[in-house]
């Protein structure tokens, strides 16, 4: 087991190094640099060159990359060129907010998809099954920013039940209950796709399992339907876990659109805005951080697999 973890951790290093190099090179290929964001629209080319030099952006690529890598390894992500704040703090806060949203979305979508998926596998002709079908289809096909706007229209504007913007009421808001209220709509909007994907997947997996010999054997032995369900659930856990892990990864990667619509200050929004301002330090550190989280999540899913399924452990 220990060897397994060690091997996976070592494999992470080239992956992450590759990510940083790709991001760094991409930033150089894309036209524009932070200097253009700083300068007023009518500043001249001459002005641009001067500021570029003053910010050290005219250095050779290799020098820029290595000095960035060196500082990053020391844990110093540097300072945002545009916001002038420490990238580490900015990213940490944004990551925290994204985690909160991702957990909300996962909570909403995982539980609901499990219920709908399993139920509709058992009762393929029930209205819940039809509803599940509909969710499976719309969840993945409705763009989530559109779902977000519909939710805002209904719950914030017409009914006035839930706030549509930010993580808290104005002026800091009122604690965790306030945040819970602000979380509901973005969580649903961000979780829609996951809900669709997982509902379909769980339903088909359970249907599949229900036709397996072991279920027939259990039935023949007179096992209660509850016991059969437990056996089925245990057998579909690895599949669910794989998909759920990936989905959670996507949620962490940042639902940029949902975050934008709800003004949710998450990491997706932070990186997206940094890209539009060419704020290199944030983009580099941000992508790196999201990659680390993604890779770690994958690792965790694999480990959980090994824990649940002995076949994986011995393979």
């Amino acid at each position, binding site marked *: 087991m220990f060897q397994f973890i060690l091997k996976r951790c070592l494999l992470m290093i080239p992956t992450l190094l590759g990510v940083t190099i790709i991001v760094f090179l991409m930033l150089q290929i894309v*036209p*524009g*640099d932070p*200097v*253009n964001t*700083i*300068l*007023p*629209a*009518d*500043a*001249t*080319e*001459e*002005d641009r*060159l*001067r*500021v570029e030099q*003053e*910010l050290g952006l005219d250095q050779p690529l290799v020098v820029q990359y290595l000095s960035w890598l060196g500082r990053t390894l020391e844990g110093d992500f540097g*300072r945002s060129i*545009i*916001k*002038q*704040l420490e990238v580490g703090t900015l990213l940490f*806060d*944004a990551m925290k*907010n994204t985690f909160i949203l991702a957990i909300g979305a996962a909570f*909403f979508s995982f539980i609901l998809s499990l*219920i709908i998926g399993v*139920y509709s596998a058992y009762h393929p002709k029930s209205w819940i099954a039809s509803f599940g079908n509909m969710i499976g289809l719309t969840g993945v096909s409705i763009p989530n920013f559109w779902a977000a*706007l519909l939710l*805002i*229209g209904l719950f*914030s*504007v017409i009914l*006035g039940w*839930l*706030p*549509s*913007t930010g993580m*808290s*009421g*104005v*002026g800091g808001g009122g604690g965790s209950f306030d945040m*819970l*209220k602000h979380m*509901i709509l973005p969580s649903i909007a961000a979780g829609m796709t996951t809900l669709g994907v997982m509902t379909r997947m769980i339903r088909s997996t359970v249907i599949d399992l229900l036709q397996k010999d072991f279920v027939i054997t259990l039935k023949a032995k007179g096992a209660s*339907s*509850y016991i059969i*369900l437990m056996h089925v659930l245990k057998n579909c856990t690895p599949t669910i876990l794989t998909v759920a892990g990936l989905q959670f990864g996507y949620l962490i990667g940042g639902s940029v659109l949902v975050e*934008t*619509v709800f*003004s949710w*200050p998450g990491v997706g*929004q*932070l990186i997206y*805005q940094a890209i539009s*301002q*060419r704020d290199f330090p944030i983009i580099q550190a941000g992508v790196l951080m999201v990659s680390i989280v993604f890779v770690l999540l994958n690792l965790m899913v694999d480990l959980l697999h090994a824990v649940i399924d002995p076949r994986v452990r011995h393979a």
Partner: protein
Amino acid sequence: MTSILKLKAFILLMITAVFLAGCNNNSSSSTSDSKTLVIAMSASNIPSTDTTPTEGYEGYRFVGHQLYDGLVNWDLSKEDTPADVTPGLAESWEVSPDDPTIWTFTLRQDVKFHDGTPFTADDIIFNFDRNKNPDSEYYNASVAGGVLSYLKYIESYEKIDDFTIQIKTTEPYSFLPYDLTFIKIASPKAIKEHGEDYVSHPIGTGPFKFVNMTQGQELTLEANPSYWGNKPKIDQLILRPMPDSSARLAALQSGQVHWAEIPPTESIGKLKADGFQVLLNEYPHVWPYVLNTKEGPWSDERVRQAANFSIDREALSNSLLNGVAKPATQVLYPGHPWFNEEVDPYTYDPEKAKELLAEAGYPNGFDTTFIVPTSGSGNMWPLPMNEFIQKNFKEVGINVTIEAIEWQTLITEYRAGFPDDKEVGAYNISLAPIAPWTFDRYFATSSFKPNGVNIGEYSNAELDEWLKKARESFDTAERDRYLNEAAGIVAEESPWIYVVHDLNLRVLSENVEGFVQPQSWFADLTTISLE
């Protein structure tokens, strides 16, 4: 089976409970505190709180001009005339009669920074050094970059006594006060104390003080009770960045904010019916195509005029844009001192456009490429607008290929000028003709790159002459007369295709009182009270 049902019922119940718990009180109560004004900005980020705000003029509007003063400020108290400059930290200034490059500014003596330190001439020198003198200890390249085009004409500056400073310009330059509105004065004590972290502790002299900032969420300012000018009537000002227009609309409609910048134009009717204050006013904004007058078909004046005659600006403004813009036929709008009444305005006249094209040797039209942004400050709704105009051009035979690129990329390419290796006829980029230097920067021969952004390399000796006179004229009426002549030439020869002027759409909730929508990119928030 029953146990599954129970389990299911329990989970469903729990979810419902959580959901209902979240719904039980009305979210609009959050703005019920009557002394706090909440604004939904269209910016994606909270503008930097340093003396050079980010997020363009919106940054100056809500943050820069609120936290800080310049030696000179904008007078934003009138809605019927374009905003002009007014004394700020300098109560008066004069130009030496012997040498028009020497300006003497007399400073206010009753001003204190938000941290209580009294304001003197040393503070001006410190801030000028921070922006202009790379050798000074506190020089900040990022901050300086944002204002370098406003410091271009300043050769030197010095303190005469505690409340007098002298500025020497590189040549006689009467537009200096306009430039100085962008040079904000921060407390040297705070800059020295907080160093790189200054943006988290900004200290100015403006009508509002910094309270706190939650990155990506909100910036809270509070009234400065000892402000030297009109003191704010509200206690607190909360700024929230909301780049999505539908999100701003929803926040306004559900009472989470009092003020929304540019909600979707389709919503105007409904908002008016619901009692919201829908504000529109002219201001120095123009949405043009900056043409390549150096080479290709656009180097012919008649072709440029033809293009100007082929746009149905009324339909564009009223149908496509729901009346939030007005047709533009010059750089400025009718009623502005720099709008030339004598030039025949460009109307929608495709026949005349075809005639002009034929005269210029293009009876069958021609193909050209326009580089346009996909979004960006002041660019309004670039894609639908460009597609509309593309159809107009097609009717007269000008076949435009639209190349839509991301805003920062466009800015970069625009600054570098028209490419040599491919045909580009124009850049679509919105510019803000807010100060007398407008014509200089965009049309003067001396503003060819790399010295300026006359990237189309339009040149007219007569225009240059008028502009020189304007720069050297220290009498406002006389200066405006020269600029008016300049505007006439630029309208006639049209190095740009003028399309529309935006009308600065913003919507306020019913209980916001006392706000004047000025003819400016900026806004005075001190006059506002909440019912």
